[in-house]
C-alpha cells in the first residue's frame, strides 16, 4: 500500500495478486487512448473507427423533441456531449446514460444510446448495479444539484468511494427547476425563492469538496458556456478509469438566471475564473494575475507588478491536499473561482475488482453445479 492512500489499513482481500495491490503513486494521465473499462477477458464488440467510419454527432441525437426551456444551459451541454461521443471510440450500443429526476435528468431521452430516466437521486445506485453486472458498458450518469446532493446524496458519496467506473455529470444550477424554483442544496444563504420568501437559511454544499471528501478519484469543474473546456474535461473524465465527478455550472435562465455569470461571461470571466491545468502555473486575467501560496492561504498576485510567473503555484492534479485547498476557493470576492481538473488518482475500480474476485473464486473452486450444491452437507438416505 502506498503511504498516502487516505484509508485505514486493510487486510488483503481474495483477489488475484495483480488486482489486490492498489495502484502506486498517481501517474500522469495518458493524453489519448481508449478507456479500458472492463476486466480482462471482457472485450467490447468491435466498434467502428469513429471519425473515419463517419460516425458523427447526429448519430447520437435521438428522435425525441427536447423539452427544456429555450435558452437553458442544458442545450449547450447536450450538444457538447453529442459532439464528444464520436471521438470516444465507444460503439453507440455500448453507451448507457442513466439519470435521476430533474431538468437535467431528461438528458438520456435525447441521446440515441441506451438509457434510463430513473428515480430522484437514485441514478448512481442504478448505475452501480449496471456496471457491477456489465462492466464492459460505458456508463454515464447525468444528475443535478438537487438530485445528487439532496435526495441522492448518499448514493453519490458511495459511488465515489467505491470508485465505480462511470462518468458522473452534475449539472449545478443552484435551484430546483423542474419543481418551479425552490432553493437547492447549492443555493447561496439568503436566497429568496417561493419556498424561502424571507431568504434561505441553509449553508450550501461545495460539490467539489463533497466529492473530494468522499475520496473521489477524479474531480473536475466546468461550465455550460465554455463548450471547448467542457469537452476537454469530459474527454479526460472518460479516459479516467474509476468514478469521474464533473460539476458543470449550468444556467437556469428561468429560475436562477445569471447565477454563474461572474465566471462564465466574457466581461468578468478573465478576472473571476481560474483555469487549473496540471503542470502549469496558476494564472488568470489573461496572465496578468497569478495565484501563489502564502503559508496555507492562496494569494492573488499581480504579474505586471512585483511578481512574476515564477512566483505562481504550479498546479498538480495528483496532489490531494492541493485539490482540497483550491476547491475551497468558493465564491470568494478576493480570489478567482477555480475550474478544470482538480484531482486525479488511480485506484482500483469496484466493478473491475468485483469481477476479478469472482474470477479468482472460479479459478479456485471451478464452476459450481446446482446438483452438487444440493447434495452438500449432512445427508442421509431413507430406503424404500
Amino acid at each position, binding site marked *: 500500500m502506498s503511504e498516502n492512500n487516505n484509508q485505514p489499513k486493510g487486510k488483503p482481500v481474495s483477489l488475484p495478486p495483480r488486482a489486490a495491490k492498489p495502484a502506486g503513486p498517481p501517474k500522469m494521465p495518458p493524453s489519448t487512448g481508449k478507456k479500458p473499462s472492463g476486466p480482462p477477458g471482457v472485450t467490447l*464488440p468491435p466498434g467502428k473507427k469513429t471519425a473515419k467510419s463517419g460516425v458523427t454527432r447526429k448519430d447520437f441525437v*435521438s428522435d*425525441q423533441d427536447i423539452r427544456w426551456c429555450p435558452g437553458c444551459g442544458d442545450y449547450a451541454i447536450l450538444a457538447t456531449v453529442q459532439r464528444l461521443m464520436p471521438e470516444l471510440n465507444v460503439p*453507440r*450500443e*455500448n453507451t*448507457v*446514460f*442513466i439519470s435521476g*429526476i430533474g431538468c437535467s435528468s431528461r438528458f*438520456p*431521452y435525447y*441521446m*440515441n*444510446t*441506451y*438509457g*434510463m*430516466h*430513473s*428515480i430522484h437521486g*437514485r441514478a*448512481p*445506485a*442504478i*448505475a*452501480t*448495479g*449496471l456496471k*457491477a*453486472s*456489465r462492466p*464492459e*458498458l460505458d456508463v454515464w450518469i447525468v444528475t443535478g444539484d438537487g438530485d445528487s446532493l439532496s435526495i441522492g446524496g*448518499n*448514493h453519490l458519496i*458511495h459511488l465515489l468511494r467505491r470508485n465505480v467506473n462511470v462518468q458522473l455529470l452534475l449539472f449545478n444550477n443552484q435551484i430546483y427547476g423542474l419543481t418551479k424554483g425552490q432553493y437547492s442544496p447549492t443555493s447561496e444563504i439568503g436566497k429568496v425563492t417561493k419556498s424561502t420568501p424571507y431568504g434561505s437559511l441553509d449553508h450550501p454544499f461545495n460539490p467539489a469538496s463533497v466529492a473530494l471528501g468522499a475520496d473521489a478519484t477524479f474531480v473536475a469543474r466546468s461550465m455550460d458556456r465554455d463548450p471547448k473546456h467542457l469537452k476537454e474535461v469530459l474527454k479526460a473524465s472518460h479516459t479516467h478509469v474509476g468514478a469521474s465527478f464533473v460539476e458543470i455550472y449550468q444556467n437556469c435562465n428561468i429560475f436562477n438566471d445569471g447565477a454563474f455569470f461572474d465566471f462564465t461571461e466574457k466581461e468578468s470571466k478573465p478576472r473571476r475564473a481560474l483555469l487549473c491545468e496540471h503542470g502549469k502555473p496558476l494564472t488568470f486575467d489573461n496572465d496578468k494575475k497569478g495565484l501563489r501560496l502564502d503559508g496555507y492561504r492562496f494569494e492573488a498576485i499581480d504579474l505586471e507588478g512585483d511578481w512574476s510567473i515564477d512566483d505562481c503555484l504550479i498546479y498538480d492534479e495528483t496532489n490531494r491536499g492541493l485539490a482540497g485547498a483550491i476547491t475551497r476557493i468558493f465564491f470568494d470576492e478576493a480570489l478567482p473561482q477555480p475550474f478544470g481538473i482538480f484531482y486525479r488518482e488511480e485506484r482500483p475500480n469496484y466493478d473491475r475488482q*468485483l469481477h476479478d*474476485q*469472482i474470477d479468482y*473464486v*472460479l479459478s479456485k*473452486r*471451478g*464452476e*459450481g*453445479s*446446482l*446438483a452438487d*450444491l*444440493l*447434495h452438500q*452437507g*449432512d*445427508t*442421509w*438416505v*431413507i*430406503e*424404500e
Partner: protein
Amino acid sequence: MSDTTREKKIEVLSDATILFAGDSGDGMQLTGSQFTLATAYARNDLSTLPDFPAEIRAPAGTTYGVSGFQLHFGSVNIKTPGDEVDLLVAMNPAALKVNLGRLNPEGTIIVNIDAFEKRNLDLAGYDANPLDDDSLQAFRVIRVKLTTLTREALKDFDLGQKEVDRSKNMFALGLALWLYSRPVEPAHEWLEQKFGKKPEILKANLHLLSKGFHYGETTEQFLVQYDVRPAKLPPGKYRAIRGVQALAMGIVAAAEKSGLQIFYGSYPITPASDLLHELSRYKNYNITTFQAEDEIAAVGAALGASFGGTLGITGTSGPGLALKAETMGLGLMTELPMVVVNVQRGGPSTGLPTKTEQSDLLQALYGRNGEAPLPVLATSTPGDCFETAYEACRIAVKYMTPVILLSDGYLANSSEPWLIPDPDDLQPFNAEFITKTNELEGSEAAFLPYRRNEETLARPWAKPGTKGLEHRIGGLEKEDVTGNVSYDPENHQHMTRIRAEKVARVKAEIPPLTVYGDPKGQLLVVGWGSTRGSIESAVDRVRKKGFTVGAVHLRHLNPMAPDLGSILSSFDHGLVPELNDGQLVRILRSDFLLPLHSLCKTAGLPFKASEIVARIEEILS
C-alpha cells in the same frame, strides 16, 4: 457405550418437543442445531423454531437476553415445532421464567441449579428461588449442577475459566442426546471439523459431550430413557435445511436453469441478512452479490442490473420493503424483471426484528404509489422456499415484471428434513433476449421496446450492447408499443389496464390447488406462508374428532389460483388463520363476497395447532 448402560426403562414416544433456553452467550442455538442433526440421523421427522433475542449480547441473566431453540421430532409426520414443550432445558432463571408458559403440564425441566443464585434470580425478576418453593410442583424438575460438573470434568484441561464455563452446553447436549436415545456421532464429527485445529478445545468438548451422556445413564434422577423411532418418510436422499438456505439454492437453480447471471443487492437487515450471507458464498454459481449503502440503493442496483440483462434480486425485511417501494414502481413501469424477497418480521416500524409475522401482505400487494400491481408469491415450508424462489425468478423473467416473494423470520431460520429435489423436475426456464429490431410489419426498421408478447403481454428484454436496439426507458408514462414518453389520457388508461392484465395473466402459471384433508364438507381453512404446518396439524386433529375439514395453502397471492373460488364453494364455512390482523381474509372477503372467518395472532410466534383447532371447533359448534 453399551458396556456402561445401566438398566433403565426405555419408553417409546411417537413424538416429543424439546426446548433449549439460556443466555444468548450460552450457545443454545448451537446446542439446538446439533440435537437437530442427531435427530435427523435418527431418521425422525422434525421441525425447529429458533428464537433469538433482538440484542446480540444482551446483559447476561436478563429475560430479554434469553435465546431459545425449540425442536419437535417424531416417528409420525411432524408439521410444526410443537405446541407444548415436553422437555425444557433451562440454563438460568431467566430462561426458566421466559419459557415456563410453553411447558406441557406434565413436562420435564432440566435446570442448571448452579445458575440459580441471588444475582441471576434478581436479574430474572424472581423474588424467591422457584426451585425452593412449590411453583414448579406440577412439573418434573431435574436439578443438575451443570457449571460444577463442567468445571470438574475439565479440571485437568489447560483452559481458562471462561472457556470452561462456555462449554457447559456440550454437557447439556450430551445429556439431552442420552435422554432421547440420539446418536452422538454427528456432534462428534461436527466438533472435529470445527475444532480440528485447536486440539485442546476439541478434546474438552468431546469429553464434556460424553460426560453429559454418561451422566444421564448413571444418575438416579432419570428413571426412564425415551426413544423415538424412525419416521416413515418418502424414500430418497435427505438433508436438514433451513428456509434461508433453500431460498438461496432456489436462486442458484434459477441462474443455472435460465443461464442468466444473477445480481443480488442487499443491505444488512434482520432476518434477511442471512440470504446475503448465503448467496455471497456462491460466486462460482453465476451469482454476484452487492452490499449496498442502503435499502434503496440495493433495489436500485438490482434494477440497474436487470436493465443490463442480468436478473436483479434484492432481499429485505418489512421496513426495507417500505424503502424499496418507489423502485419497485420504476421496475413495474420500465417492465423489467426483478425479484424482491421480503423476509417478514414483527412490525410496524422496527417492531420485533427477530420475531415472525405475516403482516406485510398488504404492503406487498398495495404498498406503492399509483395503480401498481405486482405478482406476489409466498413460501410455506423451509423446503418450499427452494421451489417458490425459483418460481418467482421464472415469473419475473417470463412476464418482465418485478415479483415480490414473501418469506418470514420463522421460515428463514427453522429447519426440516428435506427430500433433495431433482433439478430436472423444475419447470423449464427460458430467458430470451431480443437481438433484432421488431418494427411493425411494413414500417422501417425500429426497436419498439413496448411491443408485447401476445400471450404473456411481456415486452422484449433488450441487452445494452446489442446493436440497433438502443432505447430509453424511465418512470414517466410510456406510450404502448414505442415506449416514448406519453401524457396522453387515453394511453395512460390503456397502459394502466395493460399492466394489470399482464399480472393477471400470471394465473396461467398456477397449478390447481391441492386440498389437504376433506375435499368438501364443513369448513375450509385457507392459509398462506409459514402457517402451513400448524394448519395441517389442526386439520388432522379436527378430522379425528369427526369434523369434515379441508385446507388449501396459497403460494400465489397475486394473482390467486383460478380454482380457489370453486373450492371455497364446496365448504359451508371458510377460516383464514394469519399471523397478522386479518389481511388475506380482507382480500378474500371482497374478492369472493363470502363471510369468511378469521383467526389472527400477532405475538411474534407461529400458531400452535391447538389454537387453530379451538377456532375451528368454535365455528362448527
